[in-house]
């Protein structure tokens, strides 16, 4: 088991965001997560990142408690601000090597640098950015920025890769290219992926396993008294239309968000 949750809760003061989460995820799974806005999907990823600690329960990474801060064993791509605006594409990826190997200067020189550069170039080739090495993020399209963010995250060979609506702001055509890219990388590099999405179809299409987060208990007097829970945990492969319909009814999510929504 790469990730284990045993009765995990997340509360902020008296507001319960997530409650009674139990989950076991194996190496190599592609877990997609859907749920209504504000139900705690990002909070869940932040716990996996180590940015937030569970309020109750056990969260394990390879059997050991999750480290209390982000680290190179867990890669991440956010919807935006994932890349460094002051570095060009090549340096954005190269910096990952430099962080790891030049503990004091943060810069590599000579042969070490050449090898790191070669590795960075291979990674950029894998995500299809070879033609834009010298471009700064603001000179890249949204899709290219996300490709860059993925390349950056993969430089560390993370045990798990966390994606928070990484393609939410992209046009449908670009999004399809990105789907092909992430599936290709997942297969070839045997990644374990957790990906939050607003697009139920995307969740079904990409994942090997779909989690639906939703509140099962409601208190109309105190809307935050109960948190969301994993209401569906579906091994993907059997996509029955009725099931899709059922989840959609429950979460209120559109099957495919209107093109260009979400920024």
């Amino acid at each position, binding site marked *: 088991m790469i990730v284990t949750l045993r009765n995990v809760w997340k509360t902020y003061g008296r507001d319960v965001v997530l409650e009674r989460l139990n989950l076991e995820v194996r190496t190599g799974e592609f877990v997609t997560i859907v749920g209504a806005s504000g139900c705690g999907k990002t909070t869940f990823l932040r716990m996996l990142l180590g940015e937030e600690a569970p309020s109750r329960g056990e969260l394990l990474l390879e059997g050991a408690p999750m480290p209390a801060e982000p680290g*190179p064993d867990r890669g991440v791509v956010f919807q935006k601000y994932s890349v460094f605006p002051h570095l060009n594409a090549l340096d954005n990826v190269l910096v*990952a090597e430099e962080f790891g190997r030049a503990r004091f200067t943060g810069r590599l020189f000579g042969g070490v640098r050449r090898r790191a550069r070669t590795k960075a170039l291979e990674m950029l080739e894998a995500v299809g950015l070879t033609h834009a090495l010298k471009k700064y993020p603001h000179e890249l399209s949204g899709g290219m920025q996300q490709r860059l963010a993925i390349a950056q995250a993969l430089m560390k060979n993370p045990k798990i890769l966390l994606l928070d609506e990484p393609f939410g702001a992209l046009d449908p055509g670009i999004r399809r290219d990105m789907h092909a890219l992430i599936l290709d990388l997942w297969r070839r590099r045997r990644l374990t992926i957790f990906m939050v999405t607003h697009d139920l179809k995307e969740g079904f299409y990409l994942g090997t396993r779909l989690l639906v987060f939703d509140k099962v208990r409601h208190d109309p007097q105190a809307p935050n008294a109960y948190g969301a829970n994993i209401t569906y945990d579906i091994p993907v492969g059997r996509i029955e239309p009725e099931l899709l319909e059922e989840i959609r009814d429950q979460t209120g999510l559109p099957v495919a968000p209107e093109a260009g929504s979400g920024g």
Partner: protein
Amino acid sequence: MKRLINEHPPHTVGYLLGLLPFALLLLAYVAASAARLAENPDDPLLPSLGMMLETFWRLATEPSRRTGELVLWVDTAASLTRLALGVGISMLTGLVVGILAGLIPYSGRTLSPLITAVAMIPPLAVLPILFITFGVGELAKVVLIVFGIAPFIIRDVQQRVEELPTEQLIKAQTLGASTWLMVLRVVLPQVFPRLLDATRLALGAAWLFLIASEAIAATEGLGYRIFLVRRFLDMATILPYVVWITLLAFLFDLLLRLANRWLFPWYGGRRR
């Protein structure tokens, strides 16, 4: 006829329009000066352009009879040294303290209240204290500039650091960066152009504090000279000096602006 807000002057006309107020002011001055001098050729209040140029030229090229020095350059060198020291120290302090306060929670909680409090103190009110503590030499003048602008720069840098998207810092950590490496490779490079911007804004205040301290206690300097010759109503020296100071201030501003553009090509292009 389009609406007024949609009417844009052509390129050259735009430049000419920008020059127009200067030309009008100059013209008004020349007229007023001529009128006054016609009444009394020794009137010192509104010297003619020729007289001012002549005085300025003399201060710039002829050794002073009293000290044997070229007054303008001695004054300029003295003032710019103080200004450079004061502004340089303020920038360094701003960078270090601003990052400490903006990035690291423990130092932030320790320093923020102090920075806020110090920023509230009117710098000129502590000038006497500075003269008493540091004497009337160079140190007090430099300290006044630092006192006057460092809190502003610190707070600006701190704010910029706090504005960095959390995502970037999380990302850096997932790439294995230590706090030090994040400062070095993520925070510093992104804060530096903002530091230059903050310095540009602070330069006006820096000049103010420089001239104020020179006016009170100095033996040379641009501010010292202006206040010295004021006693003789020597407008033919004061006015060119003011123009000279303005020109220098303009040049520094321009330099900082260009430095930002050349050194940080990504800066300014980020908002999309």
